[in-house]
């Protein structure tokens, strides 16, 4: 009987009291858009394509973001300039499908694709949520300031010959007989 009273009455009263006390706690609601929320730098919002410290496109069209994308909303095509630097001929994100999971950013070997704290992306026309490279590419390095993929990779591009990447010896002269 006591147990029943405890379960049915006392515990309910305690519950009521505890919920009531919440009336004196601070509200969590942020009154967006009157008040702009504080977004963490690592917030996964609008996707951008960044440039390397030299101002060149970071994206090398390796397709890893596209294959990592769980909703398959990234499509791109590789092309290259006369000196062998790869970049995307087109790079398209269908934001009406994007779930902002950030897998693309994790997959990107060049830090080109990054998610930003901007989340205000609603459109009245769905077609306007398809973003092309011109819309995505920014004039900056984004979150990662120093990394330049081609300074590390051994592929020759304009302004960086064979043997000039990080930790590379000058090209071998095959005709040399020296050991």
């Amino acid at each position, binding site marked *: 009987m006591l147990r*029943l009273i405890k379960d*049915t009455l006392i515990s*309910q009263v305690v*519950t*009521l009291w*505890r*919920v*009531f006390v*919440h*009336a004196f*706690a*601070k*509200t*969590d*609601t942020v*009154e967006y858009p009157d008040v702009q929320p504080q977004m963490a730098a690592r917030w996964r919002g609008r996707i951008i394509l960044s440039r390397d410290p030299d101002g060149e496109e970071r994206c090398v069209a390796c397709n890893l973001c596209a294959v990592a994308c769980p909703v398959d909303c990234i499509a791109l095509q590789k092309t290259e300039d006369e000196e062998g630097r790869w970049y995307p001929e087109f790079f398209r994100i269908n934001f009406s499908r994007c779930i902002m999971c950030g897998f693309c950013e994790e997959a990107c070997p060049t830090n080109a694709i990054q998610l930003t704290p901007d989340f205000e992306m609603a459109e009245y026309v769905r077609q306007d949520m398809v973003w092309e490279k011109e819309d995505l590419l920014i004039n900056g390095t984004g979150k990662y300031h120093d990394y330049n993929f081609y300074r590390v990779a051994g592929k020759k591009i304009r302004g960086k010959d064979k043997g000039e990447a990080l930790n590379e010896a000058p090209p071998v002269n095959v005709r040399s007989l020296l050991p």
Partner: protein
Amino acid sequence: MRFEVGSALSIGAILFTVIIVAAMLIWVERRLLGLWQERLGPNRVGPFGLLQVVADMIKIFTKEDWVPPFADKFSFILAPPIIMVVILMSFSVIPFAPGVGVIDSDIGVLFVLAMASLGAYSVMLGGLASNNKYALLGSLRAAAQMVSYEVFMGISLLGVVALTGSFNLREIVLAQSDGWYVVPQFVGFVIFLIAGVAESHRLPFDIPEAEQEIVAGYHTEYSGMKFGMFFVGEYLGVLLISSLLVVLFCGGWLGPAFLPPIVWFALKTAFFIAFFILLRAAIPRPRYDQLMNYGWLFLLPLSLLNLLLTGAFILWQGGM
């Protein structure tokens, strides 16, 4: 039997006030829930979001009022007004303050109970007429729940009636001038409170419309203003039960003279309304069978015991 009818003006004023208050309860409930859940609730329409109700009403009035082709049209249309009408009629016997009220009936308590029984028809008919399995389940639950809890509701009141010696609500209030019945009749008070929640199928006893299980129960198929009537009917029910709690157990309009009696009545009612909302915020819904077991196996014996002890007390006092 005394029988006084107030002026048409006062009837209109009371009706208007009651409906407006019930409608405003929608806003009050959402704000209070917000408060207890550490958020804000509706605050964008008008000052403090007060006009949210107006916005909701505009919405609900302009919605398509649709009767499903498979429904029984007559009873489908009939059901929602029933609940409005019976609850509003119950208010006719409520003594708000000295001189404020529609009629002063000697059978006030019985009238309220009778009207509450009729309210069950609204819910039952609505569910049956919908011709929808969820609605049917909802109406079956509603019928069982309302019929069951009416029993202890009535019995729990009998203590008060016995102490006063009258079914007249105004006399019951006056009888409490030297002490509210909540003290001697605490058990009756608690049982009436619980039964009242169940009667108005408010959370945690909203089993007939449990949306996690049966979509929206008996009003699954309702839309537009017919749904609106069910919706407002629920808040009218809250208002009615709160008023009854005040009248029967908490001394009605009685209170220190620095405030007019009607204000005392309003304040006490407001307290109980807030309590109803707190219940919703805090307590989860029991299962259907738990509700029935609780009622028949615990509340019924308890209320009978309460009546027995009250009777014994009166006899003992009378014999002195």
